[in-house]
């Protein structure tokens, strides 16, 4: 088929792309794991974070990596507010409603961006945008390598938060048994909003790692929505390690698909995996059978 010299860089490239996918999916899997809702606005929120990073760089000259703290904070606040003000009130306790409201949010955000920023595709330039690192026969983009490290770090932080902190214990309690958690004095609405906030904060981080080597336009989130859902489903809903592994796997599948089938048809592999996993193993490749 293909020689090592072609396959190795392709797989490595897929792994680094997959790390960014994993970063996007980590937030989604947290939101699913705790709230048991499917957040359709995840892609639109990522789009907003990307515009945030873009304007911080263009207007204030802030380097994307230095934009990490303010972006994470801003996205957290946005997520907390959205959950408390819109999603929680709209749900009436029904999953379908949350699905519809987050879909509505996605449509509104995406088209407001279209009104405000036109459909132009924008990129930024940093001193390291085009920098590369050689690993064996492969040449890797430096920003992608940084993103790889960032995804691992974010995954570790999330795991630590959920396993070791009081908030994490509250999150696990609410995810397991909502009524019981309420009875022992946990503020369930607050935990919901915190989870949604943390979920979107991951997108703030993802945007900072993405933009040095990526672009932003109003539709950019669409490309990530189904990919992120694929990863969440693949990894087992609510599992961070699963999301990381799933992300890497999807990145490699896309990269190899592009190599064998060409750029446009290559993406089809992701959706076929998604459909197959949903149909055959909805608890996820790495999830326990429910």
């Amino acid at each position: 088929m293909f020689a090592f010299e072609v396959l190795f860089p392709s797989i490595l490239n897929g792994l680094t792309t997959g790390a960014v996918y994993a970063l996007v999916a980590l937030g989604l899997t947290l939101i699913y794991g705790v709230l048991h809702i499917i957040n359709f606005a995840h892609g639109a929120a990522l789009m907003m974070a990307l515009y945030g990073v873009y304007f911080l760089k263009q207007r204030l000259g802030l380097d994307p990596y230095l934009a990490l703290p303010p972006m994470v904070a801003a996205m957290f606040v946005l997520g907390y507010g959205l959950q408390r003000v819109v999603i929680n009130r709209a749900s009436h306790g029904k999953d379908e409603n949350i699905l519809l409201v987050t879909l509505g949010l996605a449509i509104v955000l995406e088209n407001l961006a279209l009104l405000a920023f036109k459909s132009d595709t924008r990129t930024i330039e940093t001193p390291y945008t085009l920098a590369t690192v050689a690993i064996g026969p492969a040449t890797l983009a430096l920003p992608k390598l940084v993103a790889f490290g960032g995804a691992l770090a974010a995954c570790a932080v999330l795991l630590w938060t959920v396993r070791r902190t009081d908030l994490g214990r509250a999150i696990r309690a609410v995810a397991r048994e909502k009524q019981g958690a309420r009875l022992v004095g946990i503020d369930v609405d607050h935990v919901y909003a915190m989870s949604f906030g943390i979920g979107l904060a991951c997108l703030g981080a993802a945007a900072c790692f993405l933009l040095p080597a990526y672009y932003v336009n109003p539709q950019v989130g669409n490309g990530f929505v189904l990919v992120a859902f694929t990863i969440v489903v693949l990894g087992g809903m609510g599992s961070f390690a699963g999301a990381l592994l799933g992300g890497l796997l999807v990145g490699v599948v896309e990269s190899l698909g592009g190599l064998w089938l060409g750029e446009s048809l290559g993406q089809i592999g992701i959706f076929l995996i998604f459909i197959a996993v949903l149909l055959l193993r909805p608890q996820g490749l790495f999830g326990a059978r429910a």
Partner: protein
Amino acid sequence: MKMPSLRRDLLHIAAFTAAVALVGVFARSGVVLNFTMMALYACLMAQAWNLLGGYGGQFSFGHALFFGTGAYVQAIAQLGAGLNPWLALPLAVLAAAAAGLGVGALSFRWGLKGSYFALVTLAFAEVARILALSVDFTGGGVGLMVPLRTGAAHLQFAGRGGYVLLMLGLVVLALLATCWLRHSRFGARLQAVRDNEDAARAVGVDPLRVKLGAIGLSAGFMGAAGAFYVQVFQYIDPAIAYGPHTSVEALVAAIVGGLGTLWGPVLGALALHLLADLTRNLFGQLPGINMVIYGAVLILIVMFAPRGVMGLGQSARALWERRRG
């Protein structure tokens, strides 16, 4: 709740048909005819979605798959096989229904419900979009142009009036299908599965068969909308055919109007269309403004009127009585 009466439903449909037909035959204003045509087109998609989403309780986010299949079959049958558009139309409807049955057989067989069904239908539509971009007979990203041959024999009309009547015919068929769901044994089974699948199974209903029937019916009407699109605009490409906006328009109009009702989707499509037209007149041709409205109305309806416009009246009455009592 009162049982809907078959006679009353049929009477309403007849009145609706007569009123819209009058517009189609006698209206001379291009603006009025164009508005009527596009509103009916939105009604058809909303009613198609309602058949599965409203009466079957299955929320598809990928109805664009059926729309696009209908559109491409309509275009390819004329271009490739030289078929008369009148003959292509039933083919398009059948192909869309077959696509519906295919998706249904795969997802219902494995018990996919709720959010999972929504996601998997979305993924199917995406697969179709990518395939349409990559294969030859769809014209790839360039799309397909259908030749302009004006004349009723070619299902293309010089004025909008003809299209209004064609569209009206399709909408009336969809209304009759909805009417059938409300009053037939099949419809009763479908609504039983929607309300409680286990209970329905316990009384001998086969949920898979019932849901398959509903998705086939729903997809067929969506395919008719796709074929109509090709006849009016003479052009189709993968983004128009399989892009998510078509799925969204269909489901938002149905939900805003009121799910599982005969006139809800009609009202919803009409209301959203009026709203989009009004804002377009106020703010000019801004890209995306109509979709902002779609999204905002969807959020507001789910937040404050979960049973849609049709349910608003009932809610208001209930509130009034609670205040007094």
